[in-house]
């Protein structure tokens, strides 16, 4: 199966519409003889009638069948009404013998932000149920599900990106197509390939990039995404279509890490002392090599809370590493955190290297790593490429289910991409009070729930995570703070995958075929 994935044509009279790029890309698509074309939105630049009329005329040249989604620009000026007339239904599905493409509108009138609201979410779930038996399930939407690099500040991520990502993974969706950010990027998260298309014909590209589209080929063995830029060489990424896995452990355990966050220690009912005490007893019985606290140590950054936290956390027998969350640096917390918990920390266990990143900002749920820190980290990791490298910070890198996506780093797109490119083995985060674990490219990202805070989001209850590193695999489980019951969050084999996804990360990879798989 061959799919032309185009996006962000931004058709308008004059302005930022680059008609030459549009025509060149249409010719390239015609030559490829694709099975179908998916346009992931922002067909027009303004959503005005004049733009829609021009778009209808120009899009006639694009080979059919074609699925066209509405983007935030199309919805402007009540363009969402015109879209139905000039383009068609904003939600729908198309299927063949072994595939289904489900497309869903993610726009919010007059906002650049995205959302797949409750009714559409249920509709999407129904479609996934209907097509559950199709081996190749594809979902298309305008807004990005995962942070996209080289696009500046992270914004307009889908309001409920975490719920959608969770749904896609549960239903074994194999390919998600997005646009919106005007920069081509492809990631594999678990067995799901998430492809963002660049912009076909808008002058507003990123970092001097050219207009582009993605050509996607799928066979029984692999999903190959080729980014075709106007006037430049293509960049290709291939991911094998992995089957489900049975893991037969064969190696020794090299290290055990306990990950926690949201202890929320205080003398208020926000802190559940019994859950804390039970969890500490369980942690000590597990005999971890190191404990990583990803922030939310105290409920508020007050002196008496820090004094209590210092005393209570001393009960943990293993070495504990800390990074602060936003609440930890509130009030006097910015001074108390380094006094009580030593500020930034690094640690080495066997050949495992741990490093804290400080992502919290005053009075903000949004975190930041920053370009300077990212460059410094890059130099450091480049200088020590061997061993198992674990970074930990408070804010999440991936969208988390059951909350409005607001805890991501503001520079998440670049941070995530850099971590993946550097081949960081493990990233631990502790925002959002909900557990989540997934491997994106070669990097395993694990978020922990609140250990003993009253406010948490998981139906499983307050918990902490145990991450066991074996010679041959990584095993992550969640332990209930009160009962000590356990459930699996993820298992991954140490991979022989080739690092790097090969898109947009330097000219040296252009024109290569990068095999990023190998399960």
């Amino acid at each position, binding site marked *: 199966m061959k799919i032309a994935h185009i996006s962000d044509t931004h058709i308008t009279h004059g302005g930022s519409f680059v008609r030459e790029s549009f025509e060149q890309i249409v010719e390239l698509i015609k030559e490829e003889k694709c099975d179908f074309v998916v346009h992931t939105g922002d067909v027009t630049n303004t959503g005005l009638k004049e733009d829609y009329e021009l778009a209808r005329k120009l899009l006639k040249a694009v080979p059919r069948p074609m699925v066209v989604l509405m983007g935030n620009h199309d919805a402007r000026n009540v363009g969402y009404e015109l879209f139905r007339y000039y383009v068609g239904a904003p939600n729908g599905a198309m299927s063949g013998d072994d595939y289904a493409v489900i497309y869903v509108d993610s726009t919010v009138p007059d906002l650049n932000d995205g959302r797949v609201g409750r009714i559409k979410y249920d509709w999407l779930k129904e479609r996934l149920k209907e097509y559950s038996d199709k081996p190749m399930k594809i979902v298309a939407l305008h807004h990005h599900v995962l942070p996209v690099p080289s696009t500046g500040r992270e914004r307009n991520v889908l309001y409920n990106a975490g719920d959608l990502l969770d749904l896609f993974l*549960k239903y074994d969706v194999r390919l998600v197509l997005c646009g919106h950010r005007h920069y081509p990027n492809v990631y594999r998260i678990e067995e799901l390939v998430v492809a963002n298309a660049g912009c076909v014909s808008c002058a507003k590209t990123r970092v001097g990039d050219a207009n582009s589209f993605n050509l996607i080929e799928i066979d029984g063995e692999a999903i190959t995404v080729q980014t075709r830029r106007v006037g430049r060489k293509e960049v290709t990424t291939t991911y094998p279509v992995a089957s*489900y*896995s*049975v893991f037969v452990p064969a190696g020794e*355990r090299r290290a055990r890490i306990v990950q926690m966050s949201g202890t929320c220690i205080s003398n208020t009912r926000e802190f559940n002392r*019994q859950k804390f005490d039970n969890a500490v007893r369980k942690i000590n019985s597990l005999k971890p090599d190191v404990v990583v606290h990803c922030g939310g140590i105290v409920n508020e950054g007050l002196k008496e809370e820090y004094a209590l936290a210092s005393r209570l956390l001393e009960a943990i027998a293993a070495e504990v590493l800390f990074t602060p969350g936003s609440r930890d640096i509130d009030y006097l917390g910015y001074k108390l955190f380094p006094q009580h918990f030593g500020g930034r920390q690094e640690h080495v266990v066997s050949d495992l290297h741990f490093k804290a990143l400080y992502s919290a900002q005053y009075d903000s749920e949004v975190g930041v790593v920053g370009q300077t820190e990212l460059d410094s980290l890059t130099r450091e990791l480049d200088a020590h490429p061997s061993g198992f490298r674990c970074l930990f910070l408070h804010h999440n890198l991936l969208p988390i289910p059951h909350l409005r996506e607001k805890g991501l780093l503001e520079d998440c797109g670049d941070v995530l991409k850099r971590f993946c490119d550097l081949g960081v083995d493990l990233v631990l985060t502790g925002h959002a009070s909900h557990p989540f674990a997934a491997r994106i490219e070669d990097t395993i990202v694990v978020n922990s729930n609140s250990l003993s805070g009253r406010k948490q989001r998981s139906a*499983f*209850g307050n918990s902490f995570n145990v991450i066991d590193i074996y010679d041959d695999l990584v095993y992550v489980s969640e332990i209930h703070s009160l009962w000590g019951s356990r459930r*699996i969050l993820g298992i991954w084999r140490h991979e022989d995958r080739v690092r790097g996804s090969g898109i947009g990360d330097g000219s040296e990879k252009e024109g290569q075929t990068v095999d990023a798989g190998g399960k």
Partner: protein
Amino acid sequence: MNQEESAMPVRQYATKKLIGVEGSKSIDAACQTMVEFGIGSLVVMEKGKVVGFVTQGDIIERVVAAGLDHHRPVAEIMTVELVSVDINTAVGEVISLMGKHQLKYMLLEEQGDIVGIFTFEDFHDPRKQYLETDISSE
């Protein structure tokens, strides 16, 4: 579970990463794997294929209570007649089948391969959490 939930494919609730043991490994080794990973069952593999299933209950019944040598291969005590359903089966139907066969788990298959497992634990009841919250607040 309401009618809408019970019609959803079991795929949504399944654990799709399974831990296994080679059939030639000893019962001891299988027990150690269960303890190490904090799990109560293992799929048994031979030549890359799932050939059986073994649970803690099987070991208590077929090894400890029966006085069997625990150095014997786990393949000797595994359940070979696997009860499985297609991963697209409605979860309500899967639960009915589990009741009918008196199973605490159901193996799930897709295109001929075992690809996951469904247990009651996967269908967590939020009421349990309310109870936990009440208990820990007292």
